[in-house]
């Protein structure tokens, strides 16, 4: 028996929340990016689930979307981590509360 669609959606929502919680609660910049990746992955789950349970699976729309999302997310992770390294070199620290120069 297949799980109903809303199970996948609820799972995806929980995964998204976990990722979001980590993004706003952890003090290390790297872990903020990890949380970001989790959020993106949760969205991918939604896409695939809707593709599978949707009316036209042969159009492969959900699959394509997920693929591109993976690619883009990877690139963005790379750039983000490069930034973290650069910041570390400058400030010798990657604690997010120390980077408040944009405060107004």
């Amino acid at each position, binding site marked *: 028996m297949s799980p109903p669609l809303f199970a996948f959606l609820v799972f995806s929502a929980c995964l998204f929340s976990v990722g979001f919680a980590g*993004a*706003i609660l952890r003090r290390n910049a790297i872990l903020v990016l990890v949380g970001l990746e989790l959020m993106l992955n949760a969205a991918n789950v939604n896409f695939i689930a809707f593709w599978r349970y949707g009316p036209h699976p042969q159009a492969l729309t959900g699959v394509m979307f997920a693929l591109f999302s993976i690619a883009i997310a990877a690139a963005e992770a790379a750039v983000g981590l490069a930034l973290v390294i650069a910041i570390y070199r400058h400030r010798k620290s990657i604690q*997010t509360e120390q*980077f*408040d120069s944009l*405060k107004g």
Partner: protein
Amino acid sequence: MDFIVKYLWLIPVLPLAGAGLSALLKPGQRRLAAALAIGPLGLSLLLSCAALAATLHHGAETGLARSTQDFEWFAFGQSTVRLGWVLDPLTAIMLLVVTFIGLLIFIYSTAYMAEDEHFGRFFCFLGFFAAAMLGIVISNSLLLLFVCWELVGLASYLLIGFWFQKPSAAAAAKKAFITTRIGDVGFLLGMLWLYAHSGTLLFYDGGHGILEQSTVTHLAALTTIGGMALSSAISILLFCGAIGKSGQLPLHVWLPDAMEGPTPVSALIHAATMVAAGVFLVARVFPLMSAGPHPGALEVVTWVGALTAVFAACIAVAQDDIKRILAYSTVSQLGYMMMGLGTGGVAVGMFHLTTHAFFKALLFLGAGSVIHGCGGEQDIRKMGGLRKLMPLTFACYAVGTMALCGIPLVFSGFWSKDAILHSARHWTVSQIPFYLGVAGAFLTAFYMTRQICYVFYGKSATHAHESPPAMTLPLAILAVCAIMVGFLGTPIWPWFDSYLSGEPISFHAGRLLEDGQLPVMLLSTAVVFAGAGLSAWVYGKSARTSRATDPLEVLQPSLFAWLRGKFFIDELYDATIVRLNAAFAGLARWLDATIWTGAVNLVARLTRAISLLDRKVDEAVINQGFDGGCEGLRVSGQWTAQGQNGQIQRYLRAIAVGFCGLLLLLIWGCR
């Protein structure tokens, strides 16, 4: 004739231009200053001769010659103000008198004022005076005449007060100006009244002028206060100006004081020309004065003149300053001229004006020569025996005296004074002016002889020398004129009369015997010799002995004191009018200091108070309000900016909350 009339305006303008240029000169350029005065006046003299010739020529053809030239000065609304000049026999005669005598006096002044440091200024003012006087003479408009009248008054002020460092001279100049000004108020009122009725102030305007038939009869027909004809009332007002300018009673007080000015000034202005301007004015507006069946104005003129003649002659008897005697004599003779105008007409008055101009200028220049020769001394009691020391001056002075007294047949004064007495005798209104005139003749002879005795006879009290030729030559010329001019107006050949009126005349010796001429002549001759003889008897002795006290003073001390004190008219004026004026001035000063100044201060204080209030409002309300507003904005901005702490995680939280809100809105909104 028209050619001359077109350029008639040059006659006053040339001396004016000379005076203007002279004003720009440096103090050292004396010769140039004199040249700038004498040259233009010489040219004006030539032009005046040409004008006289033109009138003679024209008159020979067409009777009375008169030509005018007008121009428009300005227009207001419908009416225009026109000015212009006129050339007629009256103008020509007066022009010649003024320019000829003026030129002689200018030449005399180069020697008289040679030691004065303000030589240049003197000639500048003289030129200015000549221009203004000539302006009066040629003017065809009563307005232009008035303007030049006032300018002549100004020139007189400047020249009387020439030595303004002397307080008495400055005071005399002020007195002259103010006194003549009082007369000018009447003049102005008359002018305005005339303008109101006639709408023009031109004398001759092709039939519409104020002296022409239509206007004159119109004005004579209207009556005003006291049943007087309008023309008479206006004429009396105009005569007020003449009273002031010609020193008639009661405005005579300035003329003796005007002797503070240099002697050439006294000769030119206060003997020959300016004071004669009043007489000239009466002569000019004579058609208006004599209009109607009972010309009241002429009666006023005659009475004023007669009274002045005797009054001034009385005062002259007791004066000791050589110039002052001559000044009072001038006042007296001006009275005679007025009497002549009132009783006999233009020709009678103008003839005496002409002869008087010559012999009075002669007398004044002679007095100047005496003063110059005595080193500045003016008191006759300190002079004496100048007959031998200054023979030329004595001879000329004697001629002048005889002309003034009216020694018969030879001297001009006899003919002109006689004409006056003759017309006074035949005056229909009253005989009193005639008797006053006779009394005046007696007194004139008396005081002139007194003066001669004191100055030229007796032992010489001072060290004197004859004057230079520049001074004695004009004297000689004037002496000749003083004799020759008289022959222009004898009853045998009344050329003067016919010239002015335009009627033809003939030479008729028999005229001496008709019309009551001879009795009057005999009477006047007798009176003159009586006066001269009495004076010679009284003063001839004292001239040789002591001259500390006047014999008359010993005889009648109180009467003499009154005469010497000029009947205390000055003191009377001082106590009444001057004091009243001073009181009014004090009141005006008080008003100005307290009320007007107070008002101004009040306004100033009010303005300051308003400005202070404005400042307070500006500071408190506007500045504070604005600052407060800005401050509030800043504080609120600062408070709001606390939300931006630079922490990304806080931003993320905010985004999430906002996202949730949107989501709920979408879901519940779409339900």
